[in-house]
């Protein structure tokens, strides 16, 4: 349907920041330092971590992921956002354009943008993402983990969003169409990012409220649908465990005359998510529930359903311990072992206990104990420490 990648890379990337200087000549409205257009700000996010796994004694120190976000208000209506990441894994460094958005604000009710986004499904994916310092915990919930196979992390296309203040409930919406960028199908390329497979008619809708009478509260509903192209099912299935591959093929081919294994088929993907987030100075409660359905578009009707949730609670301590924030998170994913969209079994459950220590306004040390189980694998106990920093905006808030 809409393939905007060439447009994004060829036009937006090049022209967005070149436009800054041109706009600067025409959009200057006030001759005051800090109030003239363009207003450009930059935030850097960095992390380093230590990981120790109790099961096999594996230990590792890594620089993790570093992010840079640029924001430019070109006029009182036009703005641009860009986010880049540097990921260190093993001895490789991987760079990526995480987001690149150009937006025109018509009013509070309608803001229209074009670009590459973090898909607005649920809360975490579009709220914290590469900003390790922003999130209380060290890592994202497994539903949205690095190279997630469940929630399509990125989305390229057109997005309309806005706010409707109805009875102090502050209803917000985001609706978009374009290309869903999946990290699901191909296996990890060892760079920290999975190879990408595109869905060609992604549609995303999110409704949420932020009631004025409870500061910091947001809850909402998201719906996402896409058709994912699988260029080669053989490639897709290469990611499955060999033990289950034969069984998987037999199931799919049962009672069917055509050999669909050698035919390119698409997978209809539907995802529904509910989220609740309360973020205040002293308390933080975040929870999301995601339900999905995957189905082949032609051939024998093979449908997989699955669901996952997490709930996270944290409390900022008071008095002499006010820099400490203990937290707990439960993650649970129920997925079919041979889900037609996933390259490997996504079943997962974990308990995370940790504490965050903000020793300065711009840096936090986090220590976490995790007890987790992926699929049929043995349960793991691990200890993780992370130093996360934010290099704040050139302007002081």
């Amino acid at each position, binding site marked *: 349907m809409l393939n905007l990648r060439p447009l994004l890379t060829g036009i937006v990337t090049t022209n967005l920041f070149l436009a800054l200087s041109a706009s600067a000549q025409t959009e200057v*409205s*006030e001759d*005051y330092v*800090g*109030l003239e257009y363009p*207003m450009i*700000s930059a*935030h850097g996010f960095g992390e380093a971590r230590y990981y120790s796994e109790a099961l096999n004694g594996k230990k590792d120190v890594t620089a993790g992921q570093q992010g840079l*976000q640029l*924001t*430019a*208000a070109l006029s*009182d*209506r036009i*703005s641009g*956002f860009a986010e880049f990441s540097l990921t260190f894994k093993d001895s490789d460094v991987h760079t990526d354009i995480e*987001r690149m*958005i150009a*937006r025109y*604000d018509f*009013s*509070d009710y309608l803001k229209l943008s074009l670009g590459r986004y973090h898909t607005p499904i649920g809360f975490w994916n*579009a*709220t*914290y*993402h590469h*900003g390790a310092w*922003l999130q209380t915990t060290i890592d994202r919930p497994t539903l949205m983990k690095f190279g997630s196979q469940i929630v399509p992390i990125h989305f390229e296309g057109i997005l309309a969003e806005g*706010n409707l*203040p109805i009875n*102090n409930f*502050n209803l917000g919406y985001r609706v978009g169409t374009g290309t869903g960028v999946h990290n699901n199908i191909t296996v990890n390329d060892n760079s920290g990012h999975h190879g990408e497979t595109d869905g060609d008619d992604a549609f995303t809708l999110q409704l949420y409220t*932020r009631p*004025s*009478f409870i*500061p910091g509260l947001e809850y909402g509903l998201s719906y996402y649908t896409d058709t994912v192209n699988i260029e080669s099912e053989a490639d897709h299935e290469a990611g499955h465990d060999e033990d289950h591959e034969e069984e998987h093929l037999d199931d799919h081919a049962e009672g069917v005359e055509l050999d669909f294994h050698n035919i390119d088929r698409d997978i209809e993907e539907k995802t529904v998510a509910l989220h609740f987030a309360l973020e*205040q*100075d002293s308390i933080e409660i975040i929870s999301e529930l995601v339900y999905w359905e995957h189905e082949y578009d032609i051939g024998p009707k093979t449908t997989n359903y699955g669901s996952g949730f997490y709930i996270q609670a944290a409390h900022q301590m008071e008095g002499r311990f006010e820099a400490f924030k203990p937290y707990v998170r439960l993650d649970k994913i129920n997925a079919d072992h041979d889900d037609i969209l996933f390259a490997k079994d996504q079943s997962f459950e974990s308990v995370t206990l940790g504490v965050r220590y*903000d020793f300065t*306004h711009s840096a936090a040390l986090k220590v976490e104990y995790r007890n987790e189980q992926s699929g049929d694998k043995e349960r793991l106990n691990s200890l993780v420490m992370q130093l996360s920093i*934010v290099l*704040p*905006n050139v*302007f*002081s*808030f």
Partner: protein
Amino acid sequence: MPKLFNATAPLLKRLFISLLLTLPCIGNAQAKEVLAVIVHPDTTVDSLTEEQVSRIFRAEQQFWPDNTRITLLIRAPVSQGRTMALQRIYQMSEQGFRKYWISKMFKAEVASGPRVMYSTGMAASLVNAVPGAILLVPFTNIPKNAKVLKINGKLPSEEGYVYSM
């Protein structure tokens, strides 16, 4: 010892009475800590509700009804206006406030945060000069010619004004 007590008793008595008389004045001074909401003179709005103020300063509402972009101005840390605004409007600590705006920009919901005013004079000058500007100031620091908004139908000078602390 009794002589010393007798000599100082009148003095202590006068001091005690003076303190009692002063207490109501201290109470009044505290009651005078009122936060006023002032805007650019051309702003077409004369009155806001408490919820609208919260929505505007949290950037959930970014345009005035005539579709002029709202420009948030806020005093620098430690100033009385900032402290009162964080307590009463944002209900956040200084760290929470900072994180809120970094997060807001990270989510691409705003292209810039509030502009920081380092002096009352700077604030007064800009709120009158920048179309769409809005600022929270202590009642005692309202600049000349500023347009003061009613909140929940009351001006800061009126009894029952919502931002009295």
